[in-house]
C-alpha cells in the first residue's frame, strides 16, 4: 500500500480520446493565487461518459474549461498535458484551438439563461457553430438548426427558431443549449451541471436526452455534476474531485460498490436517499472544504476525515489502484471499515394521530396580482395557492414537496402570517392567525417562526451574531441583557456552535454555520410552529447533512410542529412524518411519509419519485411510463378540472371537467385524483384500474 503507484497504473487504456496528465491550474487575482486544480489525471475513451462529481469549488468546471482552453483571464495551466486525439492542447496556438471548439469539443453550461445571448434569436445561435466553422451555408445551417431543435425535443421548432431565449422555459433553454453544442456533431461533449437549475422532472428528461444523443452521435461525454444520483445513473465512469484534486476515479459500479476513498464514502453516506432508513441519523462530514488559496502538504481531506492519521496531514497521497479504479488515500475504506450504521433516532412520540391539531389550514388561497395596469375585475392573478387545507399536530413535521413555482413558499409564508391569504385562514391552536392585525397577532407572533433558505440573506449583515440572536428576545422584551446573552449562548450550544461566535459578523461564517444561526434564531422564541423553506438547498452536500441532522434533533427535542418545504424529495422524506405533494397551488396528495413514498397514489407523485436519480448504479431504470412529461402550465390560468391532467398519462375528459378532491386511499393517506394508483378506501369504483393511455409528448 505504501508503494507509490506507477504512472501507467492510472489506467491509460488504449484508444483514449482524451488524456489529461498532471494538470494544474493557477489563478492570480491580485495578491492571491488560487490553485483550483492540482495534478489532475483523467482519461476518456470514445463513446464513454465520464461523470465528474464534487462539491462546489472542487474544480470541476475548471477542468472542463481547461480542456476547452478557455480558462478565465488571469489563470494559466502551470503544468501537465491535455491530449485530444493525439494532439497536445496545452500550449496549442489559438487558431487551431478555435477550430476544435464547437466543432470537435463542445460544452453545455449550467445556467441556460445567461448562457444564451439574450438579444439574438434562438435559431441563429444554434446555427452559429456551423457558420463559424464554415461547415454550411447560412440557409443550410438554419435548416440544420431546426432539425437539431426537433431532435432535442422542442415542439414546433420552426416557430421556436425565431424566439428569443427569455421566451422559452428553463427546460427548453437547456435543450437549446444542447442543440447548439451538438449541431456540429462534436467528438466530445462537456456538460457542466446541465440540469442543476432544473426541476427533477425536467432534469430526468434532459439527462435521458443527452444519453440518447450521445449514443446516436457516438460522442464521448464529460458530465460534471455534484449529484451522486446523476452520475450513478448516467455515467460509465466517475471521477470524484475534492479541493482541486481528483481523489478517486473508476467505473461507476466499482466506485459505488467498492468505494475506497474516505471522502467518497463520506459523501455517499451523507446523502439522504429515498431508500435509506429514516430512523437512522445521516452521516455527516464535519467542517467545510479548505480555502483553495492555501496549500496543504498532505491529503486535503485530512482535516475533516475521521480516519486521518499523521501521515495524511503531512504526505500527499497519490492515485493508485487497479482495474481503472484508482484513489488517492492513505487509509482507504475496506469492507471492515465500511459504513457503520448511523445513530438511531428516538422516534418522536408526540406525533401520534391522537394528538390534536396545532396548526390548521382551511381553504387557503393566495393570488398575486400580475404587475401592470389592467381594468379592475380583469386583473390577472397568479394562482399561487388554491384552496389548500391540512393540519399539523404538535410535535409533527409535515413536508411539502413539488416542482418549482407550485406555491410551496407562498403557502409557507402564510403559515407564519408573513403574507395575508387572499381567502381562507390559518389557525394556531384554534385562534385565527392569518389576515389579522399586527396587534391582534402579537401574542401569537413568537409562536410562529420560520427558517429561511438563504441564511446569508436572512441575517442582517450589519449585526453581530450575538445581536442577531438577542434581537428576538429584545423585541419581545424577554429578560435582561445578560439573560439574553445567556440564552444566546445556550442556543448556539444547541446548534453546535461555540460562544466565541457571538462577536462575529455573518459574512465571517461559513454557509453551514450561518444556516445553524438561522435555525438558532428561529428557535430563540421557543416557537410552537417552525416553517423551514428550503432549509438546506443552498448548502453543499457535505454540509447539508450536518444541518439536516441538527434540524431533526431540534424538531424532536422541542416537540415543534414543523413544516419543511423542499423540492428535494429525499430531504423531505428524511425530515417529515407526513408529506404533502403540491402541484400548481394545490395539494394533490398528502399522507404519512412512508405511505406516500412507498405507495404513491397520485400519478404526479409517482412521476416525481421516478424522476429522482438514485445514487446506486444498480437501481432499476425507472419506468418511463411513470415519468412526468412536459412543463408546468402557467399559474396565471391553470388547467380546468385536475390541474395535472395536461401532463398526466392517465388523463381523460373527466379530469378536464371535474376537479378531484382529496379522498382517503389508506389510513393516513389522501389523494386528489380520479384515477389514483392506490385503491381508494371505501370507494369501489375508484379502485378500478384506470385505462392507461399513451402519453403524448406535447402538452396542450
Amino acid at each position, binding site marked *: 500500500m505504501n508503494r507509490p503507484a506507477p504512472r501507467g497504473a492510472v489506467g491509460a487504456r488504449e484508444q483514449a480520446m482524451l488524456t489529461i496528465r498532471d494538470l494544474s491550474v493557477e489563478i492570480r487575482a491580485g495578491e492571491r493565487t488560487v490553485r483550483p486544480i492540482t495534478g489532475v489525471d483523467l482519461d476518456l475513451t470514445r463513446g464513454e461518459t465520464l461523470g465528474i462529481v464534487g462539491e462546489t469549488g472542487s474544480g470541476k468546471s475548471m477542468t472542463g474549461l481547461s480542456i476547452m482552453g478557455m480558462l478565465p483571464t488571469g489563470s494559466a495551466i502551470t503544468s501537465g498535458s491535455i491530449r485530444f486525439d493525439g494532439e497536445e492542447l496545452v500550449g496549442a496556438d489559438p487558431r487551431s484551438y478555435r477550430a476544435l471548439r464547437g466543432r470537435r469539443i463542445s460544452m453545455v453550461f449550467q445556467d441556460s439563461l445567461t448562457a444564451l445571448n439574450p438579444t439574438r434569436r434562438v435559431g441563429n445561435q444554434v446555427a452559429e457553430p456551423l457558420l463559424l466553422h464554415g461547415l454550411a451555408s447560412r440557409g443550410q445551417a438554419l435548416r440544420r438548426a431546426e432539425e437539431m431543435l426537433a431532435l432535442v425535443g422542442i415542439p414546433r421548432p420552426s416557430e421556436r427558431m425565431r424566439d428569443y431565449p427569455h421566451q422559452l422555459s428553463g427546460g427548453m433553454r437547456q435543450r437549446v443549449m444542447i442543440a447548439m453544442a451538438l449541431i456540429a456533431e462534436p467528438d466530445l461533449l462537456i456538460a457542466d451541471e446541465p440540469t442543476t437549475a432544473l426541476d427533477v422532472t425536467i432534469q430526468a428528461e434532459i439527462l435521458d436526452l443527452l444519453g440518447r444523443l450521445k449514443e446516436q452521435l457516438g460522442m464521448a461525454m464529460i458530465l460534471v455534476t455534484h449529484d451522486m444520483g446523476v452520475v450513478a445513473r448516467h455515467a460509465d465512469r466517475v471521477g470524484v474531485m475534492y479541493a482541486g484534486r481528483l481523489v478517486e476515479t473508476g467505473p461507476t459500479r466499482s466506485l459505488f460498490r467498492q468505494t475506497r476513498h474516505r471522502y467518497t464514502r463520506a459523501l455517499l453516506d451523507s446523502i439522504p436517499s429515498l431508500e435509506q432508513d429514516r430512523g437512522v441519523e445521516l452521516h455527516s462530514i464535519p467542517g467545510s472544504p479548505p480555502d483553495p488559496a492555501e496549500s496543504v502538504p498532505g491529503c486535503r481531506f485530512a482535516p475533516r476525515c475521521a480516519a486521518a492519521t499523521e501521515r495524511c496531514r503531512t504526505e500527499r497521497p497519490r492515485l493508485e489502484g487497479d482495474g481503472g479504479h484508482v484513489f488517492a488515500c492513505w487509509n482507504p475504506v475496506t469492507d471492515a471499515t465500511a459504513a457503520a450504521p448511523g445513530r438511531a433516532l428516538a422516534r418522536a412520540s408526540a406525533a401520534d394521530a391522537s394528538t390534536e391539531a396545532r396548526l390548521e389550514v382551511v381553504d387557503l388561497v393566495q393570488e398575486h396580482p400580475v404587475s401592470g395596469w389592467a381594468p379592475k375585475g380583469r386583473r390577472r392573478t397568479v394562482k399561487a395557492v388554491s384552496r389548500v387545507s391540512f393540519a399539523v399536530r404538535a410535535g409533527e413535521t409535515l413536508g411539502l414537496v413539488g416542482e418549482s413555482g407550485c406555491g410551496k413558499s407562498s403557502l409557507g409564508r402564510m403559515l407564519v402570517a408573513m403574507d395575508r391569504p387572499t381567502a381562507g385562514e390559518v389557525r394556531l391552536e384554534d385562534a385565527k392567525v392569518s389576515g389579522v392585525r399586527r396587534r391582534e397577532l402579537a401574542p401569537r407572533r413568537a409562536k410562529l417562526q420560520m427558517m*429561511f433558505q438563504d441564511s446569508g440573506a436572512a441575517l442582517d449583515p450589519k449585526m453581530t451574531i450575538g445581536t442577531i440572536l438577542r434581537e428576538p428576545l429584545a423585541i419581545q422584551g424577554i429578560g435582561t441583557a445578560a439573560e439574553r446573552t445567556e440564552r444566546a449562548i445556550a442556543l448556539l450550544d444547541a446548534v453546535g456552535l461555540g460562544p466565541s461566535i457571538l462577536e462575529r459578523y455573518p459574512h465571517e461564517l461559513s454557509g453551514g454555520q450561518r444556516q445553524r444561526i438561522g435555525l438558532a*434564531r428561529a428557535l430563540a422564541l421557543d416557537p410552537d410552529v417552525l416553517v423551514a423553506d428550503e432549509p438546506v438547498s443552498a448548502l453543499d452536500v457535505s454540509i447539508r447533512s*450536518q444541518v439536516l441532522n441538527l434540524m431533526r434533533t431540534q424538531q424532536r427535542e422541542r416537540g415543534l410542529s414543523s413544516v419543511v418545504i423542499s423540492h428535494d424529495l429525499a430531504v423531505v422524506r428524511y425530515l417529515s412524518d407526513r408529506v404533502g405533494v403540491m402541484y400548481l397551488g394545490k395539494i394533490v396528495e398528502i399522507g404519512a411519509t412512508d405511505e406516500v413514498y412507498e405507495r404513491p397514489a397520485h400519478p404526479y407523485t409517482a412521476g416525481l419519485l421516478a424522476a429522482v436519480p438514485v445514487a446506486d448504479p444498480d437501481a432499476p431504470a425507472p419506468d418511463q411510463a411513470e415519468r412526468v412529461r412536459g412543463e408546468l402550465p402557467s399559474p396565471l390560468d391553470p388547467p380546468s378540472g385536475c390541474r395535472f391532467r395536461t401532463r398526466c398519462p392517465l388523463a381523460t375528459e373527466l379530469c378536464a371537467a371535474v376537479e378531484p378532491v382529496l379522498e382517503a386511499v389508506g389510513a393516513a393517506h389522501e389523494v386528489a385524483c380520479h384515477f389514483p394508483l392506490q385503491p381508494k378506501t371505501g370507494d369501489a369504483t375508484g379502485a378500478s384500474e384506470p385505462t392507461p393511455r399513451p402519453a403524448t409528448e406535447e402538452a396542450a
Partner: protein
Amino acid sequence: MTTAHPELSEKTDVIVATATAARPLPVRAVLRALRRNPMAVTGASLLLLLALFSFAGPLLYPTNQTDVNLLDALLPPGEGYPLGTDPNGFDVLGRLMLGGQVSLEIGLLAAVFATTLGTVYGAVAGLAGGVVDAIMMRFVDVLLAIPFLFFVLIIAARFTATPLTLSLVIGGFSWLVSARLIRGEVLSLRVREFVQAARLMGAGDQRIIFTHLIPNTFGVIIVNLTFQVADAILVIAALGFLGFGLSYPVTDWGSQLSSGVAYITAGNWWLIYPAGLCIVLVVLGLNLLGDALRDVLDRRR
C-alpha cells in the same frame, strides 16, 4: 447538554477561526481597506490638501481680501503676489483660499441637505410602497425630467445668491437622485429575508427602519454624499461661470473663474487656471474617494 455534536462544533470553530482570525468592527475594517486602496488614498490626500489650503492656508499666508486695492489691480504673478492680483487688487492666491472655504462649505452643506432630504423621502416612499410610493416617485420623475441646471439658473437669477441660499437651492434640486437610490435600496432591503425575519419576530416598523434598514443603507448614503459634494461643487462652478455666483465680499472658485474669463483676451491666465485647477482637484478627489468607498463597501456585501 442539548448539543447534537459537541465534537463537531469544536472542529468547525477551529476551522473558521483560522479563516477569519481577526474580527474588526466594520468601520475600522472599511478604513483599513481604504488605506490600502490607492484611489482612496489619492482622493483623500487631495481633499485633505485642498481643505488645509483653504482653511489653514490663510493662517500661514494672510492676505487682505476685504479692502480693494485700486492701484495693484490685475498684476501678473510676481513679487508679493505669487499668483498675481485680480481686477480689484485682491491677491489671487489668498482669494483662492477664501473661495475654497466657500466652495467646500457650500458643496458639503448642499450635499448634506440633499442627502438628508433624499434619504428621508426615498425611505418613506420605499417603505410605504403601493400608491404612496408610486405617487412620490412619479413626482421625483417629474422633477428629474426637468433640466436641473435650468431651474437653478432661473432661481439664481431671480434671487440673490448667498452661500446658504445657494446650498439650499442646489441641495433642493439634487436630492432626487439620492431619493431614488435610497428608495431602491429600501425596496430591496425591505424584501430581504433578514427584514422579514425581524418582522417574524414581531419587530415593529420603527425597529425595522432604525436597526435594519438605515444601518444597511448607510454605505450607500455615504458614497452618495461624496458624489453629491462633488456634483454640488461643479454646479456652483457652473453657476459662477454663467454669472450667477456669489459676490463680494464672499467668493467661490466658480465666480473667480467666471470673472477671470472676461479678461481672457487680455491674457490674464492667472485669473482663470488656478481656480480651475482647484475645482478639478477637489472634484477629482471626491470622485476617487467615492468610488473607492463604493468598491470597498460593495466588496463587503
